[in-house]
C-alpha cells in the first residue's frame, strides 16, 4: 500500500515538474518574441529615431560580429571597432581573429589587409556600393526612411525597438532576405544589426560601448 502511495506521489510530482517547466518555457518564449506595433506607433517610433539621428554627428563603438553558417552548423566570431562621422566617413576595423580595415571616405573605399593597402572608387563596384549603403545607413538607422529600398515593419521586444527591413531591389535581395535592426528604445540608437540570407546563414553585429558625438581623430579616415 505504502509502495503504491509513494509511486503515485512520484508520478504526480513528475507531472507537476513537467507542467511547471512547460509553463516557464512558454512564458520565456512569449516574452522574447517580437510584438508588432500599429502603423501609428510605427510612424512615431521612426520619427523619434530620425529626430535622434539628425542630432548625431559622430558615433564610435566596439562591435562583435557573429557569422552563423547553417550548412556547417558553425559560427565565426570577430571583434572590432567602428567610427562614423557625418556625412559619409566610416572606419570599420576588425581586430580579431583577423586584421582588416575598411574605410569609407567620401567617394573612396580604402582597405588595409595583411600589410596591403587598396583604394577603390565606390562607383566602380556595385558590391562596395551596396556594402557602403548597408553599413552607413544601418548604423544610423537611416534605412528606415528608404522606402524605395526596403519594406519596413517595426516591432517591440523587451526594451528594444526592432525594425525588419525587407529589400526591394534585386542587388540587395540577392544578398539578404531580411535586415533586422535593434534600437535601444531609451536612446533611439542602433544596438544590434542582424542580416539574414536566403540560404539560412545569419550575420549579427552587436554594437558595444557606443559613444555619440565624441571627438574623432580625422586621421582614422585615411590609411597613411
Amino acid at each position, binding site marked *: 500500500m505504502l509502495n503504491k502511495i509513494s509511486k503515485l506521489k512520484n508520478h504526480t510530482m513528475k507531472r507537476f515538474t513537467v507542467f511547471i517547466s512547460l509553463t516557464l518555457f512558454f512564458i520565456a518564449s512569449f516574452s522574447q518574441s517580437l510584438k508588432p506595433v500599429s502603423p501609428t506607433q510605427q510612424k512615431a517610433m521612426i520619427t523619434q529615431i530620425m529626430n535622434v539621428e539628425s542630432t548625431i554627428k559622430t558615433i564610435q563603438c566596439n562591435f*562583435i*560580429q*557573429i*557569422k552563423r*553558417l547553417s*550548412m*556547417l*552548423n*558553425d*559560427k*565565426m*566570431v*570577430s571583434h572590432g571597432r567602428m567610427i562614423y562621422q557625418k556625412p559619409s566617413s566610416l572606419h570599420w576595423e*576588425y581586430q*580579431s*581573429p*583577423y586584421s*582588416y580595415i*575598411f574605410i569609407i571616405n567620401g567617394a573612396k573605399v580604402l582597405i588595409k*589587409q*595583411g600589410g596591403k593597402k*587598396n583604394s577603390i572608387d565606390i562607383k566602380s563596384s*556595385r*558590391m562596395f556600393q551596396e*556594402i557602403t549603403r548597408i*553599413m552607413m545607413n544601418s548604423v544610423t538607422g537611416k534605412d528606415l526612411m528608404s522606402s524605395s529600398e526596403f519594406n519596413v515593419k517595426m516591432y517591440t521586444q523587451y526594451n528594444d525597438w526592432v525594425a525588419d527591413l525587407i529589400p526591394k531591389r534585386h*542587388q540587395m535581395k*540577392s*544578398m539578404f532576405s531580411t535586415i533586422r535592426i535593434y534600437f535601444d528604445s531609451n536612446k533611439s540608437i542602433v544596438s544590434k544589426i542582424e*542580416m539574414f*540570407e*536566403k*540560404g539560412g*546563414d545569419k*550575420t549579427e553585429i552587436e554594437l558595444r560601448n557606443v559613444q555619440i558625438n565624441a571627438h574623432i581623430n580625422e586621421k582614422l579616415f585615411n590609411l597613411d
Partner: protein
Amino acid sequence: MPILMKSYLIWISYLLFITMSGSAQVADSSHKIFLFNSEGSARYSFSIQTKKAELTGIYILRLTDEQVYGGVFNEFGIKAFDMIFLRKKAKVKLMNVIGFLNKWYIRNVVKKDMRFLFITDFQNKMYKDPYRSIEYNADGTVILKNLKYGLIYTFIPLKEQQDDKHEIAE
C-alpha cells in the same frame, strides 16, 4: 620501495597518456594541407587573386567521415559560396554562390581547383595536374595556383577562438 617505484611508474604512465591524448586533440595530423582541429573544423583567412582583382574573406571547413563542408564569406559576413567535397566520389559541389561569381565558367574553374586541393589533402600526395600547383609553409599557409587562368588562392590559418563559447550566448 618496489611498491613506491610501481606507483611512480603508474603515475608517469598516466601523465604521459594524458599529455598524448591532449596533443592528439590539437590537430588531425592525417591531413597534409588543412589543419583540422579535434572538432573537425578549420578556419582560414582566404583570398583569390586574379589578373585584375583580389577577393578576400574567410574560409571555414568542417570535416565529416563522408564529406568536407566549406563556407566562404567576406570579412563583413557576406557569403561568396558554400561547398561540399564528397570524399568517396572525389567530387565538389558549389552552392549559394553570390551573383557576380554565379557564372558557369567561374563555377567550373573554382570546383576543379577545390577538387585538386582536397584530393591532394586526402590522398596525402601531390595529385598530378599540369595547370595547378600547391605550396604549403610551416606556418600552415597554403597557396594554390591555377597557372592556366592566373589564379592564386591563399589560405592563412586563423587563431582558434577559445573565448567565444563563453562570451557569446547561443
